[in-house]
């Protein structure tokens, strides 16, 4: 955590990377940090502004093809996200934001250069993946099952330098087998919008990575009820 002991949450380029509900991840991290008495500063950085390098958690949302390739170009030119990662910052990315953390992705039929922060490449799939997504999360992360909703046309191929976030049990994720990826403190998923609403333990993992300390438990009765309902909907 930064020296002023405020947890700094940075939403990267909401003008380019923000689709339905992406703000939710920022709100949920701030809420859960607040429940633990951690002072939080949320910063939204537009694509015409320099990215601050002293953030603790960087969030990247979904977006359409044009804005996605523009965001990737600007982040490469800015260099701030790479410097923040070198400092040990946490990155959480969904959908288009997840793809652009990789080595390359396709936007408007053209291969685009990614940020090379995760060893993966993305291209277009034969069909759009829309619907409930569920899977068993990599046991090293010690988290309960992943539940989410996906809506994307991409397929992602993982290289040897990253771990899959989860093994898919419902939905498509990366390729019908695995979903998302992580390495170090960088984590990406196709679970779009407010992924953390249904996965509060994942939110707490990001907070733990950022603060370097264990967090006291909070009352998760409602998120647990939501998880139970969604996971049983895909089980039937």
């Amino acid at each position, binding site marked *: 955590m930064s020296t002023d002991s405020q947890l700094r949450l940075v939403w990267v380029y909401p003008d380019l990377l923000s*689709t339905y*509900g992406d703000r*939710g991840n920022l709100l949920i991290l701030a809420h859960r940090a607040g429940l633990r008495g951690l002072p939080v500063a949320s910063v939204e950085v537009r694509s015409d502004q320099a990215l601050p390098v002293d953030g603790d958690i960087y969030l990247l949302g979904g977006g359409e093809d044009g804005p996605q390739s523009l965001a990737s170009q600007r982040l490469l030119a800015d260099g701030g996200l790479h410097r923040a990662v070198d400092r040990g910052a946490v990155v959480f990315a969904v959908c288009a934001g997840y793809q652009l953390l990789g080595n390359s992705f396709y936007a408007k039929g053209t291969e685009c250069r990614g940020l090379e922060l995760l060893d993966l490449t993305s291209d277009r799939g034969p069909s759009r993946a829309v619907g409930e997504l569920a899977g068993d999360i990599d046991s090293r992360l010690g988290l309960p099952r992943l539940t989410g*909703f996906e809506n994307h046309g991409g397929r992602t191929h993982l290289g040897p330098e990253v771990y899959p976030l989860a093994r898919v049990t419902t939905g498509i994720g990366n390729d019908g087998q695995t979903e998302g990826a992580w390495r170090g403190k960088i984590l990406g998923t196709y679970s779009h919008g407010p992924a953390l609403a249904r996965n509060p333990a994942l939110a707490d993992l990001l907070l733990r990575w950022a603060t370097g300390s264990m967090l006291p438990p909070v009352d998760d009765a409602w998120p647990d009820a939501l998880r139970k309902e969604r996971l049983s909907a895909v089980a039937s």
Partner: protein
Amino acid sequence: MTTKKLPMRAKLATSATRSAAALSRATGRGDGSVIGGRIGLMIDPNLLAELASGRQIVLISGTNGKTTTTRLTTAAMSVLGNVATNGLGANMPTGHTSALAKAGPTPYAVLEVDEHYLDQVLDATHPRVVALLNLSRDQLDRAKEVAMMAALWRESLAKRDIQVVANADDPMVTWAAQVAEHVTWVAAGQRWHDDSWVCPECGATIERMGDAWWCSGCTLHRPVPQWTVQHDGVVDPTGTYHEVKLQLPGRVNRANAATALAVAAHFRVRIADALARMTEVKSIAGRYAMVERDGRMIRLLLSKNPAGWLEAFDMADNVPTLLAINARDPDGLDTSWLYDVDFSPLRGRHVLITGDRAMDLAVRLTVNGIAFQHVPSFGRALASVPPGRLEVIANYTAFQDIRAELDRVN
């Protein structure tokens, strides 16, 4: 009034449309407008064009406010004569076909059009005026993205010589409409900005100050409006202020009324005459109507997307409020949009939640810092509030469920 004869095939298709609709209503399977239109179009694919021909037609499209604006415009146009309309909200070509078949020959028709079907319906009906209200995110797992929708509209307006009435406060609508040869601009407002920060023309940021907006990278900017919503009324193109007294709540409905007046003005309807008719509109297919049940005065508000929820909070009175959310096919299967809505206007009210996806709403309200009570049914909600007013805000199928419990209130 036109007495143009329909060709034999169209006649047959028209009568099939009517009887199928009547059958569907009689068997209680719905209002019949979709099934009837589908059968009619099967017999004669050209039926909508046949039925439209000879009428002066108005089309109304946009993400929100279509049904209400269609009703207000129909009321205003009724000053001139009989008006056919798809007042029940069946807003695809099958619904238009059915509405026109059912109405018989009328000199005028006012049709609500699903934004995805605008091009097709323009082709079939050759309207005299098209009113474009707004564009915002709606049911992401199905709808086209907002910018793509605006581009489709723009393309279809560019190739036609048509009178457009468009919302000058919505950058997406402005960009789509500005290619039309004749545009009447209405300052109808835009409470929801989150789908129009990026210029659809050049990709630069849209800047806003007060009522004004402009692109920081190109020449796109807010056109000078001819009609403006001000205070409790509307200012017309001559600068004259008219008080608008509707039975429908909220600023957004005064804006819908302004659009209806601007459309009717193209047919030379006098504003005072139009307003007198619009004032008679009490409710729209269950929306806004006040219903009494067990000593509770209940009003239903329908909100289908984030922009609609912001408008509903503006309309809602400060009384106990039930929020009902489903995610069935007509609603869209994804509930992510709940995080695009700031529920804080409800803070401090007695908030109740229900519906198939009440748990999504429960988590959202918790994160928003709003206390709430979960109730398993509408009946339990009624039992949980004291006698007096109850406001209900619901999305599409949740609204229909509650409306059914209130005996399909109109």
